[in-house]
């Protein structure tokens, strides 16, 4: 009976499993089958929440609450940890402090504030920050949803010509706001806690080929003006981690598709590690050029969210895929399926980690899709966590489990190899690093192995060297004597 039941359920399950193939990239850049790292768990939509969602734009998680902004209903929606609605807010009263401030500025207008097409939100201990894009300002609320400040005047010559249209925002521990604004190519705007523009950080460099530099050097001013502007690529999103490092995603430029993900340190320098088999940039292989049958071009990364141990996930809006990387830049797993069914998403706009689960906000179907780690994904994350804490043995044990689930997973072999290297089992370690294509650690293991062999055979090697040298000299002397010469006198 159980057998028949299993068979029948397999007949239903197998095609479902096979329609969506989970893949990862091998060292040689082939796409190989992989166990899924995350899988669909639940979804929330307007009906289950009891609000009207028409074009949700951004989502952020703060202390078991989910904050969503909608750019058509102009609402801030708060959802609690049970995934039920806390409230939908359209107008915000002024706080006493802000009223005092306005009075001191000589203003008498204390009417409530509304937001117009908000595109971004971030929530921190210090307050709720909303990109009030339609009103060209950033609105800061406290956790009672009273207005603490409104920041719209940016004192920079960039905004002499264009309006300040904030799209995405993130805030660090010292209340500095980092804003991605529309049509601003200088970088991410850093705004002080009092709303004063500070500087641009994390400028996206453009790379010119030697030929371009040469041809531009020959052109006249008039010709240069006629050329298409070489604009640095625009940032698409920012998220801050606990160390005040900014994870940023940007559109890829035509001549540089390798740095759509950046980790910007407080100095404004990109410090992300690209030690994986390929630089973290979403899909590695894609069709180039216009094509009517498949989606072409590189991944269009639209949001980024980091979780513990430096693991971060990016969302590719173009193909509706989620790429999860570790701190070193290894591609851990790829997830997500394009579609309009409830467990898929078609136009993801924002992601954020909710504990270990991942929330994906879909503008197309107006849902929040919740993905949870599979056994495989949980193992991988756990192994990385152990590795970070220096518990190599525990990490290696888990990597072995990972390999059992997914033997195509080359990173796991490196994890096992590192333990063997520490245990000075060099030969085995070499074998594992070879499987994981880690030349750096392979070299270390090989060095140990070579020393081992040299030590074991030291007598033999030294002996043979002495023997051969003596033999050669002896032969030489012998042949000299035989010819009737003398070794003492040079003749």
């Amino acid at each position, binding site marked *: 009976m159980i057998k028949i039941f299993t068979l029948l359920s397999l007949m239903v399950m197998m095609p479902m499993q096979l329609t969506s193939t989970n893949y990862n990239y091998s060292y*040689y850049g082939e796409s190989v089958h992989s166990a899924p790292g995350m899988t669909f768990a639940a979804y929330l939509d307007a009906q289950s929440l009891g609000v009207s969602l028409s074009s949700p734009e951004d989502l952020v998680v703060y202390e078991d609450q989910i904050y969503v902004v909608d750019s058509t209903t102009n609402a801030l929606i708060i959802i609690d940890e049970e995934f039920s609605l806390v409230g939908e807010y359209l107008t915000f009263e002024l706080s006493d402090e802000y009223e005092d401030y306005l009075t001191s500025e000589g203003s008498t207008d204390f009417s409530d504030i509304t937001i117009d097409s908000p595109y971004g939100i971030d929530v921190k201990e210090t307050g709720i920050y909303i990109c009030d894009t339609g009103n060209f300002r950033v609105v800061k609320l406290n956790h009672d949803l009273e207005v603490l400040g409104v920041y719209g005047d940016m004192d920079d010559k960039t905004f002499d010509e264009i309006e300040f249209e904030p799209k995405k925002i993130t805030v660090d521990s010292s209340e500095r706001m980092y804003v991605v604004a529309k049509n601003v190519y200088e970088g991410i705007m850093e705004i002080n806690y009092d709303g004063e523009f500070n500087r641009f950080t994390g400028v996206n460099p453009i790379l010119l080929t030697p030929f371009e530099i040469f041809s531009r050097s020959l052109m006249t001013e008039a010709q240069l003006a006629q050329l298409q502007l070489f604009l640095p690529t625009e940032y698409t999103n920012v998220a801050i981690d606990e160390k005040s490092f900014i994870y940023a995603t940007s559109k890829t430029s035509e001549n540089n598709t390798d740095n759509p993900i950046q980790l910007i340190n407080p100095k404004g320098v990109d410090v992300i590690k690209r030690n994986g088999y390929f630089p973290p940039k979403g899909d590695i292989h894609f069709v180039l050029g216009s094509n009517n049958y498949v989606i072409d071009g590189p991944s269009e990364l639209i949001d980024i969210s980091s979780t513990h141990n430096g693991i971060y996930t990016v969302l590719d809006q173009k193909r509706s895929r989620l790429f999860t990387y570790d701190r070193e830049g290894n591609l851990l797993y790829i997830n997500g399926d394009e579609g309009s069914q409830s467990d898929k998403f078609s136009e993801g706009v924002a992601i954020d980690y909710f504990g270990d689960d991942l929330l994906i906000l879909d503008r197309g179907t107006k849902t929040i899709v919740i993905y949870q780690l599979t056994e495989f994904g949980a193992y991988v994350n756990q192994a990385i966590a152990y590795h970070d804490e220096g518990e190599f043995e525990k990490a290696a044990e888990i990597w072995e489990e990972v390999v059992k689930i997914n033997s195509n997973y080359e990173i796991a072999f490196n994890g096992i190899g590192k333990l063997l290297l520490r245990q000075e089992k060099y030969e085995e370690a070499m074998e594992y690093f*070879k499987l994981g294509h880690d*030349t*750096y650690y*392979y*070299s*270390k293991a*090989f*060095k140990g192995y*070579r020393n081992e062999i040299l030590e074991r055979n030291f007598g033999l090697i030294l002996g043979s060297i002495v023997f051969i040298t003596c033999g050669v000299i002896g032969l030489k002397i012998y042949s000299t004597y035989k010819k009737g010469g003398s070794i003492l006198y040079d003749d």
Partner: protein
Amino acid sequence: MMTKLKKIYNDYIKFPKYVLLHPFDGFEEFKRYKKGKLSVAVVFIVLFAFFRIFQFQYEGFIINENNPLMLNSLQEIFSVLLLIVLFTVGNWSVTTLMEGKGTYKEILMVTGYALFPIVIIGFPSVILSNLLTLEEIAFYELLMALAFVSTGWMLFMGILNIHAYGLAKTLLAFIATVISMLVMMFLGLLFFDLIQQFISFVVAIYEEISLR
């Protein structure tokens, strides 16, 4: 037996080494006293093709980025063959116009002899690369660079000597050779493309008629 071994040593190691280190005297003997042998040159070319396969497969893991599944021996052999044929034919056709004294056989022989450093340094280096760590791999790269530079040197001096050219004229001859190689490749592609079009045209006509 001993004399035979000695002869092989002389032909394959000693004389090429002499030519490498004393290019003017060496190529003088090479050309005037017919010390160069076509068989030796062919063996070096074959060994070079084999070296490419050997390097693809057995280069040390630390430096080897090749996917072992992508090894195609025939492709390696043909690419070496194509390169040699293109170079020799290109050089011959250019130097005949530029009053070069060398014959086609001599050009082929010089090309073969020029591969001597790669063959003689390359094989041991590839074996050595398996015994090096990441920090020491620079030695391997140095050796390979040395091999390729001396091959270039030998080819240059060889062409200079067998055609009895000066320095400037040799450089000119090399540039012209590269251009003629490109022209030949272009013509080859054009020819294949036209043949392909013609065949598909004939096939289309045949199908039209047979279906009618």
